[in-house]
């Protein structure tokens, strides 16, 4: 049914529920599971300090958090008996998820319904954007 699944996470509770579903689906279908956690480059410093690009590169910032999120997802996956491949691309989360899905030729993307960045709408901006651009099926996991 599915052989290659991509799930997006930002470490939030809503994303955890999407992960749980993705683990179940991977087990049910024997699909390979790719976990994507994107990070935005650290904001540039306005005055003083190193030039923006250098500051972003050296700050203990979003990429560090993303690694922690992916480590935790990996730990959960192992305890559920699922093998995952972690991806931590830089950039907009929706774009990153769609681009990983294309790259690995995924047949399913799994996402939480709430905005992964605290959007207040019923359907978050990330699942909304992904569902319009996905190259494959999209499962929006309801997370209220």
């Amino acid at each position: 049914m599915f052989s290659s699944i991509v799930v997006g996470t930002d470490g939030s509770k809503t994303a955890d529920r999407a992960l749980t579903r993705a683990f179940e689906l991977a087990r049910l279908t024997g699909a390979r599971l790719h976990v994507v956690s994107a990070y935005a480059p650290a904001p540039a410093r306005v005055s003083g300090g190193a030039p923006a690009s250098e500051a972003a590169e050296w700050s203990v910032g979003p990429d560090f958090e993303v690694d922690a999120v992916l480590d935790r997802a990996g730990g959960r996956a192992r305890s559920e008996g699922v093998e995952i491949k972690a991806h931590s691309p830089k950039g907009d989360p929706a774009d990153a998820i769609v681009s990983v899905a294309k790259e690995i030729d995924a047949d399913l993307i799994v996402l939480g319904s709430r905005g992964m960045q605290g959007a207040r709408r019923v359907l978050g901006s990330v699942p909304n954007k992904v569902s319009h651009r996905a190259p494959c099926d999209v499962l929006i996991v309801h997370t209220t």
Partner: protein
Amino acid sequence: MFQTIVVGTNWSHTAEIAFRQALELARSNEARLHVVTASPPSVPPASGSSAGASGGRWLGPDFQADVALERTLERLGAGDVDVQQHTLAADPGDAILKVADEVGADLIVVGNKGMHRRVLGSIPNTVSHRASCNVLIVQTS
């Protein structure tokens, strides 16, 4: 994982891609599958105009949907799946959401385009924004 699955279809070839996916999920989860076919509410003809001017535009009557379901299940060899048919005179997106609420669905399966409207994504869009359960948007293009 899923126990009650709702799928919307207008029995087009495109919609069947989503229907097959729903069928497979229902089978592998031993879930009950609720099939929703919607036809827009019939508009009474304006006085003086001839009735039935729009006849045949919509797959309206229940029996047509029943026949379509029976034939499709037979063709796909899906006699083993627990299927229940719902035919509603409503907007397809509304119909899917209504049935999903009524049966306490834990998954809605929709195609990513087509159905009765030609506007790309209108039904999956409505459903994904308003659903109170999981939604699988199947790539049918």
